[in-house]
């Protein structure tokens, strides 16, 4: 994140503006990725007219970044009707998709609608390894075909590479493929529990040694020395700081209209079918409870040696059992990054050992 963008996000947080909203249009999907955090039985999905009304509210509320995701959003026959409504509302729109349903017509429409970025999940540069994650034969070729179509139109595309045991070590190949196609590349080494709390996907996380390799790779983290530096002693003022942007400048809205602080933070704060979005954002007791927590409220993490640099996720901590407790996957990442065991974290840290 650039310094200017960080400054803007901080200003939004201080002003209480939901600057960044993630909308899942459906939880249905045409792939069956082994690590997915969703169940694919989608709840009662909002209709296109409901989404149009919601988008008007989000623009009015000051939302700038709008991410449409799922499930697979292209399974909705009214996707383009919904996207078209964002056109006049000046959002910065990202579309997250597996791209397998994008043909020439869909690519043309995406390009014409001014979608800022299309994020395409790619688990390997090897077709058989990618398809082993999606469980759909041919999915790699369909996704790649779509990416080539989009790129031929000048559409910005970013590969999202979630690292799994099934394609361990393929990150360099995916990164190189992104370079060949003129696409961006993002790597995510964290597989999370399912949204219902089922922790079985965690077994697909790569071994600790592989995590260390990834978080110490300059092509992914930039300045390794700075990124992996030993944690600094916490600034006392930082202990009064917030945990992350969830509920401060960011939130998530599920296909049925339920509002959450973040997609990884399963605390329902209200439903836009029954309340105005801003009413939920400003006045939901659950949202305000999430907002009220400060670093110094964390009994295990606040005194931890890594607190100043930790990427602790309160939603994952909640799924680990306590929103004010440690997020064990972030403990492991902090250990991988610095080579030092966080003093506050219960051992063992190698969660995949």
């Amino acid at each position: 994140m650039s310094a200017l963008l960080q400054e803007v996000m901080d200003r939004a947080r201080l002003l209480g503006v939901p600057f960044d909203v993630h909308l899942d249009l459906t939880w249905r999907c045409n792939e069956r990725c082994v690590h997915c955090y969703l169940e694919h039985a989608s709840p009662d999905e909002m209709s296109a007219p409901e989404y149009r009304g919601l988008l008007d509210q989000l623009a009015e509320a000051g939302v700038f970044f709008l991410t449409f995701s799922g499930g697979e959003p292209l399974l909705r026959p009214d996707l383009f009707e919904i996207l078209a409504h964002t056109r006049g509302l000046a959002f910065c729109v990202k579309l997250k998709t597996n791209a397998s349903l994008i043909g020439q017509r869909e690519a043309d429409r995406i390009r014409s609608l001014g979608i800022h970025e299309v994020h395409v999940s790619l688990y390997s540069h090897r077709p058989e390894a990618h398809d082993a994650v999606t469980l759909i034969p041919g999915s790699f070729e369909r996704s790649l075909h779509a990416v080539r179509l989009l790129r031929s139109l000048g559409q910005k595309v970013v590969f999202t590479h979630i690292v799994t045991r099934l394609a361990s070590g393929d990150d360099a190949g995916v990164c190189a493929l992104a370079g060949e196609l003129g696409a961006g590349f993002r790597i995510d080494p964290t597989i999370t529990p399912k949204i219902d709390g089922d922790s079985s996907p965690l077994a697909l996380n790569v071994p600790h040694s592989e995590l260390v390799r990834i978080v110490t790779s300059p092509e992914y983290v930039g300045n390794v020395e700075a990124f992996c530096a030993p944690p600094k002693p916490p600034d006392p003022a930082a202990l009064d700081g917030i945990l992350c942007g969830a509920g401060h400048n960011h939130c998530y809205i599920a296909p049925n209209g339920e509002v959450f602080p973040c997609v990884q933070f399963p605390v329902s704060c209200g439903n836009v079918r029954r309340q105005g979005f801003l009413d939920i954002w400003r006045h939901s007791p659950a949202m305000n409870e999430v907002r009220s927590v400060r670093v110094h409220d964390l009994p295990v993490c606040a005194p931890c040696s890594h607190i100043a640099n930790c990427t602790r996720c309160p939603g994952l901590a909640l799924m680990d059992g306590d929103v004010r407790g440690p997020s064990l996957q972030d403990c492991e990442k902090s250990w991988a990054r610095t080579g030092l065991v966080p003093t506050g974290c219960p051992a063992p840290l190698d969660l995949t050992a």
Partner: protein
Amino acid sequence: MNHKYIARSTEVAARMLGGEMIVMSAADSSLFTLNEQATAIWEAADGVTPLRALVDRAVCEVFDVDPAVAYSDAETFVTELASHGVLLLSDSPIPPREQSA
């Protein structure tokens, strides 16, 4: 200042935040924060009002500024944003259909 005309590109994201306009170019993802005067110009950019008249109306009549400085700043500002595709800049009025190009 020669007659110049400016219009907002539709290929941008823009939102008011705390009195300043935040603008991002879809072309190159450049992010801009516009101060109050730049925001006033941004909002008044209709493609048909000459830039000088636009600065007079949206800036000089509203803010306590030296008009010469305001015109100069506006030239710099619109040239910079036009180079990122955020503003369309032309020597002649910009029809609405071109504004959505």
